[in-house]
């Protein structure tokens, strides 16, 4: 899938800075995500990629710089504000409540209430509507193996839990889905399912930011690869233009890339 870079980026960051005391976690970093693409973000431990992602998902407020959503400057003080603008994040630690069931988890923090007086005065949840929408979304994403939408998330396998987290982001994410190491805790088979799920979400029109350490996974699903190093973007490559060892070399500083030449 080729990325149309003449379009306005869906999500863009310009010269972001975040300092913790004397440590500069984000050092004038640039970032662009275009419509319909899977953009992988890779970088060595401590390169500052998780700080960058936190800034983009609202979990961290940058000291300087600008974040643009559909070309318009935005600033979020919390992940909730980012979510309200259509940026959904699937966190590494899954961020699902194990004792709650699938439907409860999908709608956690955004519950639907019954129409009329039951909802407005008695604040009654519309469990049926939530179950139906949850089931429809799980089916749409091919998560048919999960039959019982009322089963507790803790009774699911790691891959299925990841599926729940991805389904939640696809259910509410209207602009961007950010996925932080979605396959890190999974086995081979389950990783495969989640990668297919990621492509499925992209094919439904949602651009995805994929943070991963797993090079084969990155090279399999990403349209472009943002390589982060020393708090800023070192390069953006594609799986076609560069090999995995090139990417690792750029990541570790063994290879220098002139950003102006590779951007095309």
């Amino acid at each position, binding site marked *: 899938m080729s990325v149309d870079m003449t379009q306005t980026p869906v999500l863009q960051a310009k010269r972001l800075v975040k300092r913790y005391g004397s440590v500069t976690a984000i050092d004038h970093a640039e970032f662009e995500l275009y419509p319909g693409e899977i953009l992988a973000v890779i970088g060595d431990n401590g390169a500052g990629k998780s700080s960058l992602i936190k800034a983009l998902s609202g979990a961290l407020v940058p000291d300087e710089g600008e974040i643009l959503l559909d070309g318009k400057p935005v600033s979020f003080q919390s992940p909730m504000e980012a979510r309200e603008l259509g940026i959904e994040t699937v966190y590494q630690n899954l961020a699902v409540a*194990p*004792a*709650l069931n699938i439907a409860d988890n999908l709608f956690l*923090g955004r519950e639907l209430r019954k129409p009329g007086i039951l909802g407005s005065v008695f604040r009654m949840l519309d469990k049926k509507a939530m179950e139906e929408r949850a089931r429809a979304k799980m089916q749409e994403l091919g998560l048919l193996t999960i039959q019982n939408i009322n089963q507790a998330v803790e*009774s699911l396998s790691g891959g299925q839990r990841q599926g729940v987290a991805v389904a939640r982001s696809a259910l509410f994410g209207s602009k961007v889905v950010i996925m932080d190491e979605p396959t890190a805790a999974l086995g081979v088979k389950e990783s495969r399912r989640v990668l297919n799920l990621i492509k499925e979400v992209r094919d439904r029109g949602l651009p995805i930011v994929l943070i991963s350490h797993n090079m084969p996974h990155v090279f399999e699903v990403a349209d472009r690869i943002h390589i982060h190093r020393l708090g800023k973007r070192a390069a953006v490559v594609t799986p076609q233009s560069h090999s995995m060892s090139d990417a690792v070399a750029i990541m570790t500083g063994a290879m220098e890339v002139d950003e102006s030449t590779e951007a095309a």
Partner: protein
Amino acid sequence: MSSTNSQSANDKVAEHDKVADQAGTYVAQFESKGSLVHRFQKFLHQYPVAAPLIVLILAIFGFSLIVGDRFLHPFNLSLVLQQVTIIGVIGIAQTLIILTAGIDLSVGAIMVLSSVVMGRMAIDYGIDPSLALLIGLATGAITGFINGTLITRLKLPPFIATLGSWNVFFALNLWYSKSETIRSQEIAANAPLLQWLGETINLFGARLTYGSILMLLLFVVIWYALNWTAWGRHVYATGDDPAAAKLAGIRTDRVLLSVYVLAGVICAVGAWVLIGRIGSVSPQAGYTTNLDSITAVVIGGCSLFGGRGSIFGTLVGALIVGVFRNGLALAGVDVLWQEFTVGILIIVAVGADQWIRKGTA
């Protein structure tokens, strides 16, 4: 021995199948792999109130065999209900807090302090009893707010925060009451509203106090709030996995604060029930309520790790303790063996909780 074991296992399975059939089709879809014991374990895990309910039914059955008709008489059963009313009300407050993975050691002190405030306002200051009642409820809210603030703002562990506030509230209670009891006759003459919950209605030989009815209503209201409102889901999520709840956009500090304030108000309702039950206002009353409420919650199957349990489990837990105490007393067993039994019940309940939770690990 083996025949009785398989007999009870069969009963359990039969019961399991019956309930599973009634509960709708989706329940039957969980993987039915594994042994019958494993399926029973899963069933108990899915319905946290089932285990204590089985114990309660067995206890009632057992005592009716040992003690005879005296135990099953409606009057005696309503007596059990009266005896567990205060523990039940305070247990509701404690359940809310334990669901958030907290614990409140100050519930008893809040109750007594609120009752003293109600009594002094109405008797010593001659304020209208209904206003005195409201001021008492506000006392509960304020003390709960203090607990909640210590926990959410100063990030104190609930155990430590409420261990401290327990002592503080208890000392305030002694100071404000001047360690004096307000006599029952005085309250009856000047503020009968405060004793209103002690009044009874007769129902087929059972004597139900208004306090018991209020307790049951409170259980229904809190059950609704926990299961049918977003707030309730957030309480469970906050106790289950606070990090996940936060990432889902839940303001867990607000949820916690609301839980502690609500628990404080419920404790103050408990104060009203307490005055109805003992008639007087005593700064020394309800000294064991703290630990008794935790006992009811734990026997009721609530996990001390938060996020798991049912509010009706606490009612059943309180009733189990009440039934054991009453049944053993009727059987002529020394009080010390009642305490012994309650202790064993707690240990068995927590052991069972661990075993049940292993079912899905």
